[in-house]
């Protein structure tokens, strides 16, 4: 029996962590993810978990300690946001190259500068090619569910990669919504125990981790990481199937919302999908065939599947809550359009950078995007594929 509760996104992530009961949590405070280690240290203080909580002196040390703990043979988890992830950056690459299935709760926030504590995806986009599995969550329920599935994916013998569960700072992390929780025992059974093949604390088989890896070997080791990321696709779907059996909640690489018969659609991630669904419903009432594709699994990137799912559209808008500042478009836009090109799906596509630094993402703005998509669908032409929405009036709404 699921338990009906009301929790914020941070509470949802912390509750999942409590039920997973990892051996080690090493974390450092940073808004808006601070609450996760706060809640978690309360669980530790009250003896609700077996975890050693390591209150490190920086995020660099948080990830370093997680690497040490995971290599030692334990389950290690952490949480961070924005600059915290930037400070971890060096260790993020090392964690994945050492094939350590660490799980990180990333509460997305704008990376400085200037300093801004509010939501966008610039933190996650900064590590998108670091060899981590990246799951995005529309709301508290998905943040919880993704966290429960995380270890099963990351620790799978064909994968052995670290994984981050993303949710939008404040919008999700600090908003209290209804949620269905699973019972502790069921979670314990679903997640299972971690028995690594090789680990530092195994006296019978001492190992050495993190060598100097010269020209003769590094390329092969990187190719193994690449293979593991490809393998993760299958595992993610298998775990989702098992999860559905337990909860009745279904997950894939992405969610298609009224996409099947849509003529125009938006592609986005995290909380914006909720607002977009509202707009899609509104447009559908007017007879406009609008749809949505919400990416859940961003790394590994389900290129072929996304291209196929969008192939029937007359126009598509891809949203990026982080600008790549490359004069060409955001990261999600480039991923989606290159997937479509490679899979020979020729749909006019346009990119919108939006919501930077916590700028409110309004239903009206999204509705305007669909209006522009209708025009593109009609003409079949995209004059300027690299656009913004939500800039304050006085700045050009659509073009830079």
């Amino acid at each position, binding site marked *: 029996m699921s338990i009906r509760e009301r929790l914020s996104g941070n509470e949802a992530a912390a509750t999942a962590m409590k039920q997973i009961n990892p*051996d*080690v949590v*090493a974390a450092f405070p940073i808004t808006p993810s601070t609450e996760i280690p706060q809640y978690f240290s309360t669980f530790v203080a009250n003896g609700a978990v*077996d*975890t*050693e909580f*390591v*209150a*490190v*002196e*920086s995020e*660099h*040390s*948080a990830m*370093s*300690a*997680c*690497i*040490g*703990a*995971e*290599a*030692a*043979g*334990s389950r*290690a988890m952490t949480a961070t946001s924005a600059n915290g992830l930037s400070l971890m950056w*060096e*260790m993020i690459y*090392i964690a994945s190259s*050492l094939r350590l299935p660490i799980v990180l709760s990333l509460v997305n926030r704008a990376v400085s500068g200037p300093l801004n504590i509010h939501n966008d995806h610039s933190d996650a986009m900064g590590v998108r090619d670091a060899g981590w599995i990246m799951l995005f969550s529309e709301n508290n329920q998905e943040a919880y569910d993704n966290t429960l599935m995380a270890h099963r994916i990351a620790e799978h013998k064909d994968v052995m990669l670290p994984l981050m569960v993303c949710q939008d700072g404040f919008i999700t992390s600090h908003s209290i919504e209804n949620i269905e929780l699973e019972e502790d025992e069921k979670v314990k059974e679903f997640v299972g125990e971690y028995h690594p093949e090789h680990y*530092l*604390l*195994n*006296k019978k088989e*001492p*190992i*050495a*981790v*993190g*060598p*100097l*890896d*010269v020209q003769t*070997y590094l390329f092969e080791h990187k190719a193994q990481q690449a293979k593991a990321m490809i393998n993760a696709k299958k595992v993610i779907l298998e775990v989702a199937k098992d999860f559905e059996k337990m909860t009745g909640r279904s997950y894939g690489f992405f969610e298609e919302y009224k996409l099947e018969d849509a003529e125009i659609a938006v592609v986005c991630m995290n909380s914006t999908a909720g607002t977009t669904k509202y707009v899609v419903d509104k447009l559908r009432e007017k007879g406009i065939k609008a749809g949505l594709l919400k990416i859940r699994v961003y790394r590994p990137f389900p290129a072929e599947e996304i291209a196929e799912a969008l192939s029937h559209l007359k126009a598509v808008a891809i949203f990026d809550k982080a600008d790549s500042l490359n004069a060409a478009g955001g990261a999600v836009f480039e991923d989606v359009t290159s997937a479509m090109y490679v899979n020979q799906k020729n749909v006019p596509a346009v990119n919108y950078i939006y919501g930077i630094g916590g700028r409110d993402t309004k239903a009206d703005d999204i509705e305007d995007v669909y209006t522009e998509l209708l025009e593109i669908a009609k003409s079949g032409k995209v004059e300027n594929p690299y656009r913004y929405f939500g800039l304050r009036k006085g700045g050009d709404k659509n073009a830079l």
Partner: protein
Amino acid sequence: MPYNVKEVVGNKPSRFTAGHRMCAGCGAPPTIRMIMRALKPEDHAVVAGATGCMEVSSFIYPYTSWTDSFIHTAFECAGATLSGAEAAYQSMKKQGKIDNTTKFIAFGGDGGTYDIGLQSLSGAMERGHDMVYVCYDNGAYMNTGIQRSSATPKFADTTTSPAGKVIPGKMQSRKDLSKIMAGHHIPYVAQTIGYMNFKDLYEKAEKAIYTEGPAFLNVLAPCPRGWGYPTDMLMQINKLAVETCYWPLYEVIDGKYKINYKPANKLPIEEFLKPQKRFKHMFKPGNEWMIEEFQKEVDARWQDLEEITNKN
């Protein structure tokens, strides 16, 4: 049992094996081998290495010189990495997932310890992890080619503090890391070196490893490339560092300072400086002031140490 070098070396197999690529005449390998010998034979160890000469010379894929478990992650975080492994041990032991005794030892050069790794080290010590952090201090970034660090002595000629026509080497004094670590109020801090059959080094390593809680060892480890001495002179350089009081041997046990060796005849600092090319310019006519100033600093630091010790 009183220390006997023959017995220690004869009865305890080396846990840091031959085949590593460290230079002849380097102070680090004998230091590390002896520290590892201080482990009880039945105890397992998890060793963390900061990026540096020791790491890149002892663990080149697919070979390793370490017979215990070893982990290297990056330059600045041996302290944090090992603290995570130690936390895993505490957690798993508490839960009954493991039953052996494992000790935790980190090795970092002065670059990875005095400079870029200071924060990570400080955090690990403050949090009270049951581990030993060993700095093998060779007084510069030797792995990247002899760049100055905050452990580099004043006036030393390095590739980023070259002795030039206007600036005669490094113009700043050496950071006193051992005292900084003593300031963390951890149970055990010691400064040592491979001297007198490694007695001081071995005994301090044993204390550091088997003292519950965090411990810090600062070991001077001369570098023939960076210091410019003949490779067969290593032990002589070690001796001169101690006999001139450049590198005092002392320990701080639960906040109490104790000097472990007082030279009967303190040698003038020239004796230590002279065989090293990095100080060559100090012996040019007109540069006598540099040697005088160096001597003054050594004397002042030694006096300070004696005063602190006498207060106990």
